């Protein structure tokens, strides 16, 4: 379950079109579980070739340590469908990402992992960056039930979120459990629809002979 409200400082990352290869480079995908990905979040921006933290990259600046909201540039999360991206962000400790726009698959993947993709308009986006610029201790409050982001001046900005995803996050509904509960509908569909393929039908000799 996701916390219904939380207040946090922001980590500013004013980069446009951050793709999932930047969030977690492909070489870290050779894992069979979800653990430890947060250590390699933004690995190529965060560490040098020797694995040492690069000074100047925002996650390496002590002033932003412990902040739970990533304030990113326009169009966040494009590229690969790897769920390792939200696993890495959540694993690092982020609870939300703010941008003007999120790629579809990333947004879906994030919501399934309790990471809130918060879309704000361009003016609010700019205002947030300048607030953090002036004072890195700037904090905002996220209220998932009300779908608001409250700025330090008290202004509450509404953000959109898929109603079912919100319901699942607030109530702790398990989405796979929900689909499993529709078993009779699925079975009825299968009964009236001829299968469109049988992947086991081609003889194994074609599958496994070596050339």
């Amino acid at each position, binding site marked *: 379950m996701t916390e219904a409200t939380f207040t946090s400082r922001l980590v500013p990352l004013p980069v*446009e079109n951050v793709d999932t290869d930047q969030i977690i480079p492909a070489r870290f995908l*050779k*894992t069979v579980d979800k653990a430890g990905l947060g250590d390699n979040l933004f690995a190529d921006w965060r560490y040098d070739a020797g694995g040492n933290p690069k000074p100047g990259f925002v996650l390496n600046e002590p002033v932003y340590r412990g902040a739970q909201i990533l304030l990113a540039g326009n169009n966040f999360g494009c590229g690969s469908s790897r*769920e390792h991206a939200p696993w890495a962000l959540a694993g690092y400790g982020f609870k939300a990402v703010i941008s003007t726009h999120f790629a*579809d698959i990333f947004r879906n993947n994030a919501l399934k992992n309790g990471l809130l993709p918060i879309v704000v308009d361009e003016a609010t986006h700019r205002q947030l960056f300048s607030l953090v610029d002036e004072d890195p201790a700037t904090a905002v409050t996220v209220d998932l039930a009300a779908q608001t982001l409250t700025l330090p001046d008290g202004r509450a900005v509404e953000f959109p979120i898929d109603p079912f995803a919100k319901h699942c996050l607030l109530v702790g509904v398990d989405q796979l459990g929900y689909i499993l509960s529709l078993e009779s509908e699925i079975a009825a569909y299968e009964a009236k629809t001829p299968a469109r393929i049988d992947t086991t039908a081609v003889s194994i000799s074609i599958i496994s002979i070596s050339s």
Partner: protein
Amino acid sequence: MPEPETLFEKIWNAHQIDSDDAAGGAPPLLYIDLHLIHEVTSPQAFTELRSRGLKVRRPAHTLATMDHSTPTTPRDASGRIPIVDPMAAAQLEQLEQNCKDFGIPLYSLDSAHQGIVHVIGPELGATQPGMTIVCGDSHTSTHGAFGALAFGIGTSEVADVLATQCLIQRKPATFDVRFEGRLAPGVTAKDMILALIGKIGVGGGTGCVFEYTGEAIRTLDMEGRMTVCNMSIEAGARAGMVAPDDTTFEYIAGRPFAPAGADWDAALERWRALPTDAGAVYDRSVTLDVSELEPVVTYGTNPGMSVGIGARVPMPAGVPDLSERRALEKALAYMGLEPGQPVKGQPVDVVFIGSCTNGRLADLRMAAQVMKGRKVAAGVRMLVVPGSRAIKRQAEAEGLDRVFKAAGAEWREAGCSMCIAMNGDQLEPGQYAVSTSNRNFEGRQGPGGRTFLASPLTAAASAIAGRVADPREVMS
């Protein structure tokens, strides 16, 4: 008269199980006909199934292959590919175990039909018009070339589909992408899709499913249509599709999973009813005339940052929007390119021909046509990586491998290879590559590597020149 429908709507409506107003505002439940899996995005999904004591609901709608972290180095005397990276080896073993435990057919490295997931689906005839197809991989959009609704999903959704053969999905919007005119010689499907992404931007298709229409699409072969559909995701679209026609049916006929006999006739009748009805309305549309199109090459760090081969790298100073200007400056700094410099003539270190975008037989033929009787420039490394073992065999039967080897290129085993650089094939920091793959993101082809995306013709011409080159000049 029933309401006219688009290709997308026909497939969606035939697969939506529940009504539009499901309990609790849940998104519609969509039945999935074919679920493709590979070693990288599936392990955690099987873990989820095991932890809940669930089975795979329809192993016969599921098909697995090994492609992303598999080496493309030569096979040893016993026909095996040595896997030196212990993490990759563990991941591949895990896939084998999962497929065994859950009864899923696996095209492993030992299979004669192993290859990139989006190459072997069509090649085996498993990809068919009217299907819903998903895979834990964003380039699943490739299969849309057959008039299927095919899209990438995350690992949680892979678990959903394994366990239930269904997904909950909001219905995307429809987007008519019309390519008018005919391509000039030396210009290809890859140039068309790069031009589209350049025009509408990497977020231009968000929330939409593209349907590619128009003369330039109808005259493409299936390989070209797959190249176009493949990169739909690079414009942010959920999927891309092309209405099936005789070109589609000819491609499918006789393949291992294609219907046969009376089933084939019945399938044809269903498939011929799929194209968008006259009068159907799309939510959005865009038109591109390809008659004047030049070969396109990217200069930046996303697939939307591209120019015609004869053009110059844009000047950040000329970009009015501040954040766009910053993005361009950052990209040029990463790429080590000067604002306003010509793209053509930029020296390159590596040329990569392969991937699910351009690693098919037609792509290898195009590249070979340029390479024949010529040599890769001194100091340039060229890798040619067939998309599947079947393609590799066919290319060898046609002698394409000899053309590449005689030119000084490396002829490799099938896999994703330098498209994602997970398997040891990668750029060194700072190196420049012309690549037929689909992503030029920072570090995509190896940390610090710099990628120019281009067609197989442009890539081959660049290998010979040792610089980014215009294929029309080499071919004439």
